């Protein structure tokens, strides 16, 4: 069985031959490194889909190398929107920056009476392993590199929904700029998450929380209500009529 791996030095796809049989992609990459080409570079850790180290793209879709089973002809490439350090290894420093910008932590603790149901409200969100798959799949980064991105917003949602958080407003305030309103709700993040998290839904929830805290969709504001537009603005009606 043959697979192709994008090599950064030549920017071409290099073919490697693997023994037949079912094999996780990570084992295949290890096998290549150990027996054929020690220069092939990638990142790996736990082998059990929980450390988030080994995410790559297979045939254009984000996968954890330790969980994906290789098929003949697979094309393996590094994550998108990350500086490539070498071959499949990318620079994930941006993750830290977006988490910092998104102030994704418990702001101010208050003692609460948590129940099993409360635990369930953000259980999925706290399964996030920061593998960066959603970030790689998100088309917004192609046009806006400053976007906070799916996992940072999911994490902001996690803390904002925690009953122990007495200052959820500051989290919501922190995700207004390059945040919840910049998402196109395309759902690519949800489709690729190896842990079954739904960042798209989390962002939708953050939007409604934003409105509760007095924020509004900035693009909606400029399109319709923000500027006086007595010409109807192409909407076919005058939004300011009657005022």
């Amino acid at each position: 069985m043959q697979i192709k791996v994008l090599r950064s030095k030549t920017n071409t796809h290099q073919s490697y031959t693997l023994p037949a049989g079912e094999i996780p992609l990570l084992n295949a990459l290890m096998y290549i490194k150990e027996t054929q080409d020690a220069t092939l570079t990638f990142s790996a850790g736990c082998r059990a889909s929980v450390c988030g180290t080994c995410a790559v793209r297979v045939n254009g879709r984000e996968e954890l190398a330790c969980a994906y089973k290789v098929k003949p002809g697979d094309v393996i490439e590094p994550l998108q929107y990350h500086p490539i350090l070498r071959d499949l290894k990318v620079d994930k420093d941006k993750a830290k920056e977006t988490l910092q910008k998104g102030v994704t932590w418990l702001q101010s603790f208050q003692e609460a009476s948590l129940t099993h149901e409360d635990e369930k409200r953000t259980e999925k969100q706290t399964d996030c392993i920061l593998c960066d798959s959603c970030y790689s799949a998100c088309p917004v980064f192609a046009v806006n590199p400053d976007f906070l991105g799916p996992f940072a917003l999911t994490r902001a949602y996690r803390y904002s929904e925690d009953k122990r958080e007495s200052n959820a407003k500051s989290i919501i305030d922190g995700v207004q700029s390059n945040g919840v309103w910049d998402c196109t709700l395309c759902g690519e993040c949800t489709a690729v998450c190896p842990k079954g998290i739904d960042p798209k839904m989390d962002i939708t929830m953050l939007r409604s929380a934003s409105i509760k805290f007095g924020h509004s969709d900035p693009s909606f504001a400029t399109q319709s209500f923000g500027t006086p537009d007595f010409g109807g603005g192409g909407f076919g009606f005058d939004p300011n009529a009657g005022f």
Partner: protein
Amino acid sequence: MVDVLVIGSGGAGLSAALAAKEAGASVLVIGKMYPTNSQTSMAQGGMNAALGNVNEDHVSLHIQDTVKSAHGLCDEDMVRQMCADAPQTVEWLERIGVPFSRLDNDKKGIGTVAQRQMGGASAKRACYAQDYTGLKILHTLYDTCLKEGIAFLDEHYLLNLIVPDDTIKGATFLDIRSGEIKQIDAKSVVIATGGYGSIYHGFTTNMYGATGDGVAAVLRAGGAVSDMEFIQFHPTALKHSCILISESARGEGGYLVNEAGERFVDELKPRDEVARAIFSQMKEGQRVFLDVRHLGEEKLMELLPQEMALCKMHEHVDPASDLIPIKPVAHYSMGGIDVDYALEVNGIKGCFAAGECSNAKVHGANRLGGNSLLEITTFGRFAGENAFKHAVYASSKPVDGTQRLKDEAEIKTLFAQEDSESFYTYREILGELFYEKVGIVRENGQLNEALEEVIAMQVAQKKMGISDKSRTNNQNLVEFLEFRNTLLLAPAIISAAIARDESRGAHFKVGFETENEAFRKHIVLQWKRETQ
């Protein structure tokens, strides 16, 4: 110069960093990967604390269980400190937002944290977050570090500690991205680099990088290590991939059965006993399975969602309807850097060690499930506080670049070294050798053979090198350095195992099947420091 340099960015390192920062220190956390990539993410079952939320429990019972499991090799004062501190540590984790699983009992705060039974425990004592306990604690610690503005240097591989006159002054690192050798000066250091289970390459639940880098660095720097022979084998790893199936599967009522469908051991006994029972079944030619079918799909999805997915993915079995094929593999290193009551490394002033790399004498000959997450958080914090206290009075006079220049020269030599034998082949051989001859059941003849083979491998090391000659992002180089560390630790483990002519906890030796009072002691190893 930073006050506290934390080497290793897993659960122990992050806890140490937060405590040192809270105390007022300037802190830098440096690790070979990103913080959330660490082994802590793999801890599943839970974290012990005698909260008594589900049934009656007391700190004294937690101490008793831990001491019993340690088979006389723990330090009861350290155990007492860890167990007594556990409820406060859970309280602290609660305050930073760890999403523990909960009970519906109308209580407040940590009174609602759910608890489950683990092997060797006399009560439902392990606080958990489904079977993602380590992951969720680790990520919450990381978020809190970002909140506190703690500085991180990722992808820096520890080369050597700088220890002139028995006092720590900093450490040298390989910046993996640039290939540069860097020296970081520090008033005190916390080593939190994890265990050395990956020496059992191919036969371990551990991640690839669990190669004991910090333990090896301490030995090279003249510090002491102890109890190196005590390696815990986890009874239930998936048979083909060695991926861990949490002890909570048994804690929740799972059975161990052989091919005939017979149960052969009390599943809630400590890990050493269960692992040996499985091993003897395997020696008789029996395949062994974990049976959780009777728990029902709904409960399994609720309590063990990660295990369910891993079984389907790696063994093609659905635990709700199929038996799970398992085998015991290396899981946790009880021994490590020898530390005193302040977690200060014996032989190196101002250098502290916490977590799996450290031997704080709380696990003794066998660690209880649920005590490692507890150790990394409580002792991580304790090490951070003590490191700060040391930093307050430590000299801020920096050292010269002698160590850095030495390391630069050595790495340069490695690049030029002959590469006629692949160290990857030897990594496999070493893993198998350890599983076969330094494994669950040991025997002096085999241990001696293993020692000879390891020494031969150390000689052959001169012919092993790196075939990737790139300066930057050279993972081949990092893996070779990791392999060298395991090869450095291997004789320490084997020699200690040879010296211990008795069976105690995880160390079981044929011909010496009982505990011997004369061996109720720690085997401490230290290299003679070069006199220059």
